[in-house]
């Protein structure tokens, strides 16, 4: 019996040491501030305690599909021309459906040619079917479409990751948000320049070169009139920033060819620089070699025409093509600032977002609120704990000491577990710690009350202790299971702070099974082994 108790005591001490290590690891000293620092290093605080920004972003994946089908429209057009089919109109007739292409006005004698061209090249990605009149319709296959959307989401996550890294945010979380479709969860701890961070994340940074069909026009109305009342399907009207055409020119509108000469993914590098003539800040960018070849051929063939550089759907610069340009260009004008040049170069380097992004949710917690929350949480925990300790001592006397020790160990294991597992402690998580104190001691109460009952029934102390633990055990398991089931459902359905609550509550209750049943029993046994048989215990 004695050695048995000694082994079990050793187990308890070992557990205590391991979990104390989990809380503090090896602190740089034993002063209060050194210990505090050690704790903060090992236990991860959530955004609601540390301060920071929590965002949910919607990636407009339809735009990625639309960009893809735009390219398809252009390539169907050139395929048809190459095969001598003239007069067919390739378009996307329904602006709300990015996945739908129509080939209309097919000359009757070419119907079969068109069919074989479409089926040879496009049937792997599109469902092709004959439409009304002499037309064919192509609908993107659902699997192809969802793959493309998923790719857009993955790319967007990667781009945002690179961008936040260059901002120097420590430990950012950027991952798919499971509750929505094609949404991203972004958590940026300790960020305090919110406006800039949001700009950097949200900028599509889609840089494109377009052929200018007409312009500049002073406003959208006159641009529309000049185009003959409606914009042709292969063109679009885009507004410019001030100073796009020449020094000091006002904001105006241009009619541009819809399909860009090169686009967002064709940028190889971008660096901040200065205009050699004016000294104004500018962004110098370089195209990939494939895009450079294409661009060289196109500019060579279009000398004398106007070309527009478009960034995020705004014309940045319009210039006459004076000769062949291969792989270089720059963006300036519009009173662009040094900071903007720096950010923009970074954005172009990290690549364009495949689609634009909407903010669905934003939670920002300032560091002062977080600091206050920690303070209040700690005070509430200590007050609650001391109240429970005092009550147990008064109500159960000797056995109360036992319960208080077990409760203390319960807390050490919980916090140590948080340290080891790297789980995040949130403000509701602190509430979970407080609840663990209250619920943890419940197990002791159940056992002690049963022991008292057995003692009243005339059993000897050791038999009463034995029966008490035996009978209370199933009840304790039942009560723990119900609460842990609730916590598990919270963990599955909850987000951020609430998840933190579910984690601490579950860890706390699991640790409680060990402390209230095993540790408490060892203390009783150790106490009983030093008493004569039948001598009363303090409970």
């Amino acid at each position, binding site marked *: 019996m004695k050695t048995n108790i000694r082994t079990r005591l050793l187990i308890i001490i070992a557990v205590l040491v391991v979990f104390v290590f989990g809380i503090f690891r090896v602190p740089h000293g034993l002063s209060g501030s050194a210990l505090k620092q050690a704790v903060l290093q090992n236990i991860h605080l959530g955004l609601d305690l540390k301060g920071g920004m929590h965002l949910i972003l919607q990636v407009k994946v339809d735009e990625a599909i639309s960009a893809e089908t735009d390219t398809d429209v252009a390539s169907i057009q050139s395929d048809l021309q190459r095969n001598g089919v003239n007069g067919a109109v390739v378009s996307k007739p329904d602006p709300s459906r990015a996945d739908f292409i129509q080939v209309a006005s097919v000359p009757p004698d070419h119907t079969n040619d068109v069919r074989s061209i479409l089926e040879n090249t496009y049937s792997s990605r599109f469902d092709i079917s004959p439409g009304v009149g002499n037309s064919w319709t192509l609908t993107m296959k659902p699997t192809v479409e969802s793959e493309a959307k998923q790719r857009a989401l993955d790319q967007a996550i990667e781009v945002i990751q690179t961008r936040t890294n260059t901002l120097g945010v420590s430990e950012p979380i950027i991952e798919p948000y499971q509750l929505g479709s094609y949404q991203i969860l972004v958590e940026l701890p300790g960020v305090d320049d919110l406006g800039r961070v949001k700009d950097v994340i949200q900028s599509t940074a889609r840089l494109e070169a377009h052929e200018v069909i007409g312009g500049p026009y002073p406003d959208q109305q006159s641009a529309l009139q000049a185009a003959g009342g409606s914009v042709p399907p292969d063109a679009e009207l885009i507004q410019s920033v001030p100073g796009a055409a020449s020094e000091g020119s006002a904001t105006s509108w241009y009619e541009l060819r819809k399909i860009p000469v090169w686009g967002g993914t064709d940028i190889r590098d971008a660096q901040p620089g200065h205009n050699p003539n004016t000294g104004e800040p500018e962004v110098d960018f370089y195209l990939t070699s494939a895009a450079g070849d294409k661009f060289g051929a196109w500019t060579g063939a279009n000398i004398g025409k106007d070309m527009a550089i478009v960034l995020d759907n705004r014309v940045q610069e319009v210039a006459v093509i004076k000769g062949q340009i291969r792989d270089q260009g720059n963006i300036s004008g519009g009173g662009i600032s040094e900071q903007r040049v720096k950010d923009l170069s970074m954005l172009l380097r990290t690549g364009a977002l495949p689609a634009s992004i909407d903010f669905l949710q934003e939670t920002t917690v300032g560091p002062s609120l977080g600091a206050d929350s920690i303070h*209040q949480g700690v005070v509430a925990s200590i007050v609650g704990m001391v109240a429970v300790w005092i009550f147990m001592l008064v109500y159960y006397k000797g056995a109360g000491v036992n319960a208080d020790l077990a409760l203390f160990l319960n807390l050490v294991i919980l916090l140590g577990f948080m340290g080891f597992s790297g789980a995040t402690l949130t403000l509701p998580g602190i509430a979970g710690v407080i609840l663990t104190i209250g619920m943890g001691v419940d197990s002791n109460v159940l056992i002690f009350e049963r022991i008292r009952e057995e003692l009243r029934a005339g059993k000897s102390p050791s038999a009463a202790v034995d029966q008490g633990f035996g009978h209370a055990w199933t009840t304790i398991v039942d009560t723990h299971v119900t609460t842990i089931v609730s*916590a598990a459902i919270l963990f599955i359905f909850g987000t951020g702070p609430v998840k933190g*609550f579910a984690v601490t509550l579950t860890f706390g209750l699991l640790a409680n099974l060990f402390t209230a049943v095993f540790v408490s029993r060892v203390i009783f046994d150790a106490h009983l082994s030093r008493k004569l048989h039948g001598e009363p215990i303090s409970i």
Partner: protein
Amino acid sequence: MELFHDPKIDWLGKKWYFLGFSLIFSTAGLLSIFFWHHLPLDVDFRGGTVVRVKFASHPDADRIRSAIDTAGLKDARIQEPYGPAANNEVLITLSLTATSQSAIDQGRAGIVTALSRHYSRQSDQDQNRLDLDNVSGSALAAWLQQNDPEHLGNTADAQTRYQSQADAVLHFRDAEHSGILDSVDSLRGVVDPAVLTALQQNSWLSGFSVRSVEIVGAQVGKVLQHQAELATLYSLAGMLVYLWFRFELIYGVAAVVACFHDTIITVGAFSLSNQEISLTVIAAILTLIGYSMNDTIVVFDRIRENLRLSRREPLADLVNRSINQTLSRTVLTSGLTFLTVLSLFLFGGEVLRGFSFALVVGILIGTYSSIAVAAPMLVAYQDWRARRGKAAALPAAKKARV
């Protein structure tokens, strides 16, 4: 010490009082939910913008309102949270319609500009000076580098030196003074004298600071609402299945009815007191569903044990005896948890107020319902079976226990 020495209370004899009590509270809650305050939902679920602003002195709601109105932000709601008045916090809420999809933080920006315009203590010249109550760490460091009060030049050394002083100011303001400085002079000792002089000359204190911002678009709010409903239902179903498995179906049904009763009364309390239900409140309610099951299990366990020992005793007497035998347990366990939750309610701060309020109400009701709803339901079920001429005995247990 003992709270209850061998109590002999006739609980089931009082069942009509209990029924009345439960009916009054749940009906009051339901009436409020349907006809009075409805279900006051937090921004998490409702969508919209909430900005939590702390002021240096007790805020004047009318003055804030006029500032917000002048800025053209319609239908702003200004709430002073419960709790100690010395906290000086105000929640400014904008409805979802003012939270546009494309520019989600327009409302926040509007509120901040309106307040800073309205709270400039001196005059327009403050607009160009540094507001130390709202400046960010990086902005302060950049400002110091630019003004270079210590004449260190544009070196890496100077950069780290100013950065560390900016960090010190921010730590002093946020971690030690809840985000608001009493005066610029209070920074004496926190920063170098030269920096202090520069700040005294070129900065001011607006006397307010934005503590947190929450902006939720309609889409996210709807999803979360749906999730919360699902989670609550799954929780109740989980309890039913577990008790069915551990006891008998009727025990599970009785316990879940009691839990449902607790949930309705707790949610009703939020409606009656017009407090908002947030994500953390839902977390508290789910926890309650699990926790209020505990007392019920303690009583049920004893009923089952007694059923095995004395099969002759009328069920009502046996249930009474079981409740009385476990009364001290039930009251003590709930009481101790209540103690910690009360501490959370009193000291845990404003952010957790809804959460701790739900637990305070829920634990009281949960304990009551274990005794007054769940156990009598077992008796009522048996009476109902007896009237229909079925076997009278309540199933004791599926399997014998040690």
